[in-house]
């Protein structure tokens, strides 16, 4: 357990954090902007991985593969959106239904071309598919093909595009849908369509992140999205807690989400280095996220309690 062992792990943690940061920006769009807790993401991240893996192993260029993964992710978001708005199913449940359905869909996607027609894991080695966009093989080297550079670039472009989109007339309308539906409708905004579009963009980004992740780790797996929503929320919350006071601008808020994901993975590396068992990671993550989610509630409780106390004394 020497320090150089930890240091060796850090570049990998940064790369993973950047990839999950893209996913977390998707979560931010539903959770913070649209005010929907969307659990589709656990499924759509694996869908992104599955689509990218099956395309790349069949000779499609990785850039085209991630683009298609993005579109398929949007379709998954649309399904949740329709469950929610057209069929009136509560948002959380709508997401769970899609997530469950996607598990089967993902097995089928990954099974394309196999005898069984279904497969839990698709390996794709960087040795064989040399033009994959990112790979953990190069993450420790200070060189141009280190995946961190490309991931930084992708993150920057993505934040730029989101900043532009949510600043447009249409994007402002979407923000209004999340902020106050009654007001949005009174201003002529179709809140149902708005939610569907928001869910599509979010899940598109999540699948895009899954497509990068599959390349980075060298395989796609149906269970790679388990607990993804919690990691996404962790990133959002870490970003808000650490940078919320200084990052006011929307683009900076998204940057904070990405930072949040990186910090999450750095902390994970440290606690693993300190001796935590990998098997206990999800338990730890869930508890930490629960704590942070409780903060705003506790804050108002404490404020109300103080107010009461203050009145009694004054």
């Amino acid at each position: 357990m020497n320090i150089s062992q930890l240091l060796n792990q850090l570049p990998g943690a940064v790369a993973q954090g950047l990839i999950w940061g893209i996913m977390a920006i998707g979560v931010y769009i539903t959770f913070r902007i649209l005010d929907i807790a969307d659990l589709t993401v656990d499924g759509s991240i694996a869908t992104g991985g599955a689509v990218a893996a099956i395309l790349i192993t069949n000779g499609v260029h990785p850039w085209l593969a991630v683009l298609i993964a993005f579109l398929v992710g949007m379709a998954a978001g649309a399904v949740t959106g329709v469950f929610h708005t057209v069929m009136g199913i509560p948002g959380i449940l709508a997401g769970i239904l899609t997530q469950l359905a996607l598990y089967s869909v993902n097995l089928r996607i990954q099974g394309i071309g196999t005898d069984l027609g279904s497969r839990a894991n698709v390996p794709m080695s960087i040795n064989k598919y040399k033009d994959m966009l990112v790979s953990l093989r190069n993450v420790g080297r200070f060189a141009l093909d280190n995946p961190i550079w490309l991931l930084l670039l992708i993150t920057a472009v993505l934040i730029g595009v989101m900043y532009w989109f949510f600043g447009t007339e249409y994007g402002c309308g979407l923000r209004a849908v999340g902020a106050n539906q009654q007001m949005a409708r009174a201003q002529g905004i179709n809140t149902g369509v708005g939610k569907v579009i928001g869910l599509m963009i979010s899940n598109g980004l999540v699948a895009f992140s899954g497509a990068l992740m599959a390349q980075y780790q060298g395989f796609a797996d149906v269970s790679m999205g388990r607990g993804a929503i919690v990691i996404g929320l962790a990133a959002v919350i870490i970003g808000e807690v650490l940078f919320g006071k200084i990052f006011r601008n929307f683009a900076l808020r998204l940057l904070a989400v990405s930072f949040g994901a990186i910090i999450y993975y750095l902390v994970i590396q440290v606690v693993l280095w300190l001796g935590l068992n990998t098997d206990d990671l999800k338990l730890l993550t869930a508890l930490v996220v629960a704590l942070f989610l409780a903060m705003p509630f506790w804050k108002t409780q404490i404020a109300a309690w103080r107010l009461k106390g203050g009145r009694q004394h004054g």
Partner: protein
Amino acid sequence: MAESAMLDLRDLRKTFNPGTVVEKKALDGVNLTLQKGDFVTVIGGNGAGKSTMLNAVAGTFPIDTGAVFLGGRDVTHLPEHRRAAFLGRVFQDPMTGTAASMNIEENLALALRRGQRRSLRWGITQKERGIYREKLSSLNLGLEDRMGSKVGLLSGGQRQALTLLMATLKEPELLLLDEHTAALDPKTAEKVLQLTSGLIREGGLTALMVTHNMRDALAMGNRLIMMHEGRIILDLGAEEKRNMTVEDLLLKFEEASGQALANDRMLLAT
């Protein structure tokens, strides 16, 4: 006639929770026609159907039978967000009319585009900001220097004033005000009412204003209607209204409904 009317409600009926123990007939055959420029005040007891009538105009829920015409168009089957193109609305709860997590100018920019297709052009232009600054400064609330502040930081009165501005920024064919001063303290309420009168007068707007204040109902507008049990039971024109006191009005209500007017927010005089 109906063709030229700004608003035409024909035999509106609405029952909430039909067939259950909590079934409630909220609108029981409402007929109302407003000409362009009419400013009608609406009074009535608790549960009389005032809010339901305004919501039926706005399309918040589908009505059971009847028809709603706005500016000669049949909008009965148009969803709420499509009718918004013709309507300006201010609600009783100051939280309802604005988006708290967005700033003042963003709220105004949303309102300026009410009923328009929202494009991928930038959501707020520099030219608009000038207009907003000017309009905000006419409120005398100092909001013109806080255009970048989140609306959630404003007081209830400031939010209602802003909502009014938003409702009239793009001229509505009909302005719907549902007890929009009820949640405010008397002084602020008075200010917002003055603002309301001013905006309606300057714009020559057609408006329906529900109020629990009998004095305001008499003093404002050119027509007064009284609702009871889902029906309009009294309809006073400008002439009749002018010569009437609050006491006369209460008496009229008892005559028409057979019972005393009961509204827990009612302010008889003051």
